[in-house]
């Protein structure tokens, strides 16, 4: 079964053709990072304007790269949430027009589930049940994946997403946007134990996240030092902040897996592209006798191959959208 996936929930316009949920025939991404850099973060209206400017060409390229015509595609899968409403609406509207006119079923896909499904593309032998940490600029969830179409959220953030904390701290440190790669680079050579930033456990079971306090702690640390006229070792600050995030994310993930008695864990989302996080979770998995899986970098950041993959499993579970499909900016898992 060939599925055309379409993704426009944030600042990447993407389309991909995937066979049977695992074989990626094409994966086209038009990134707007350079455009939003100037503003220090994603500007929703500018993102929407660029999505509609680029979406036809991105879909055309996904089809031509795959060597398939739209008539050969079996279904169209599209991200309908969560995300920026104006951005989502471009993909949803284009997908509805395309699927209707091509007389193909339209499959609604949850962006976060899409991230999780990137694991199946990376490793088709990695099967549910497993626990997945999905962390990106907009999301920080620990999800129990019971089957290819059943999910249960075990933990979420009470405030900022992990990637958001990276972006905000990077901005205060003057490192630029996007924060994740900038902080990782700056942290190289820094001492992760130099400053003990807070690790917060939220919720009844202590699995939930809060990164707002951590962000404030870093900002306060820098400002206090500045006021005292002290020299701040920026690499130490970056390394210590990164360590606090990595420690929190990885320990909550392992704790969730132990509680559920699940022996397979995985990462997904843009923050999963952070090398120290990948290394830490891999090590903890080994130490605890768990199987670990993580999509390659290009499948961690927003892409449409993961949407097509997720769409395949959703379709098999009977999920098809009607023509009233709308964008749902705060769609739950």
């Amino acid at each position, binding site marked *: 079964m060939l599925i055309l996936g379409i993704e426009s929930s944030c600042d990447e316009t993407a389309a991909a053709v995937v066979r049977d949920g695992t074989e990626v025939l094409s994966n086209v991404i038009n990134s707007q990072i350079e455009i939003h850099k*100037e*503003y220090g973060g994603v*500007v929703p*209206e*500018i993102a*929407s*304007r660029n999505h*509609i*400017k680029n*979406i*036809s*060409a991105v*879909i*055309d390229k996904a089809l031509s790269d795959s060597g398939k015509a*739209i008539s050969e595609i079996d279904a169209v899968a599209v991200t309908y949430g969560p995300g920026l*409403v*104006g951005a989502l*609406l*471009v*993909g*949803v*509207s*284009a*997908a*509805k*027009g*395309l*699927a*209707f*006119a*091509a*007389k193909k079923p339209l499959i609604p896909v949850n962006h976060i589930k899409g991230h999780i499904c990137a694991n199946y593309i990376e490793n088709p032998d990695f099967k549910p049940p497993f626990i997945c940490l999905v962390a990106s600029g907009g999301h920080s969830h620990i999800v129990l994946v019971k089957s290819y179409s059943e999910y249960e959220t075990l933990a979420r953030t009470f405030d900022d997403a992990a990637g958001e904390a990276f972006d905000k701290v990077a901005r205060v440190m003057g490192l630029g946007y996007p924060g994740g790669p900038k902080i990782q680079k700056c942290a190289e050579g820094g001492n992760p134990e130099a400053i003990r930033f807070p690790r917060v456990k939220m919720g009844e079971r202590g699995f939930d996240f809060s990164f707002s306090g951590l962000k404030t702690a870093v900002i306060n640390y820098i400002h206090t030092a500045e006021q005292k006229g002290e020299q701040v070792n920026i690499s130490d600050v970056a390394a210590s902040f990164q360590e606090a995030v990595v420690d929190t994310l990885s320990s909550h993930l392992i704790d969730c897996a132990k509680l559920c008695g699940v022996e397979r864990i995985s990462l997904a989302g843009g923050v999963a592209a952070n090398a120290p996080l990948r290394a830490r979770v891999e090590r903890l998995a080994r130490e605890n006798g768990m199987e670990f899986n993580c999509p390659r970098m290009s499948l961690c950041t927003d892409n449409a191959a993961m949407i097509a993959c997720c769409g395949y499993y959703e379709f098999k579970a009977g999920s098809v959208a*009607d*023509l*009233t*499909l*709308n*964008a749902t900016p705060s769609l739950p898992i």
Partner: protein
Amino acid sequence: MLIFAADTCCMAATAALVDDTRLVAQTVVNHNKTHSQKMMPQIADMLKNADIDISDIDVFAAAVGPGSFTGVRIGVATVKGMAQAADKPCVGISTLEALANNARCFCGLLSPILDARRGQVYNALFECDGREMKRLTPDRALPLDELLSELEADGRQTAFMGDGVFVYRGEIESRLGSSAVFLPKFLSMNLAGSVGELAYEAALRGEYVSYGNLTPQYVRLSQAEQDRKEKRE
């Protein structure tokens, strides 16, 4: 030649089919629900009721703005998707021009207005001899006061139409008195039949674009770009 047209730039979600001789079908819903929920089911029902298949359509037209940024994009993205699947050319039509075309039998000035918020209206002026419209201004966003001063200076009879009339009719009447006339409600709104008719004429002139090049015409920059521009100036 069969034209499909859609317009979601204003309050109503509307789609139509226009051929060489007539308006074949038109759907208009101006109530509840977002354009995203309304437009596609309306299109599907209209095509079914008119017994028209997608493959019968030669040109896909969209009203490309100005209007609500998100509203404009819903219609344009939908039409782009349909044209891409059908592999057919597109035509983009100004929603203001389509509104003015609702009063093409009027002799005088045509002044469509849409509420552009921030004390402004989206507007373009056309002069009309009862047959042909001639564009006098580009699509623009300007304070209503400025528009009314222009029209006072011109002095000609002016027909107003568009969603902005609901908001500003009183102000217009008090400034322009009897030289302002207002279209009946059913013609004062965006209608895809008008978009289709203008697209038909554009198609005859060969003014097609590919679905990839069918793009919204917002008239205004985004707020972030505007702020940045002002900061630099």
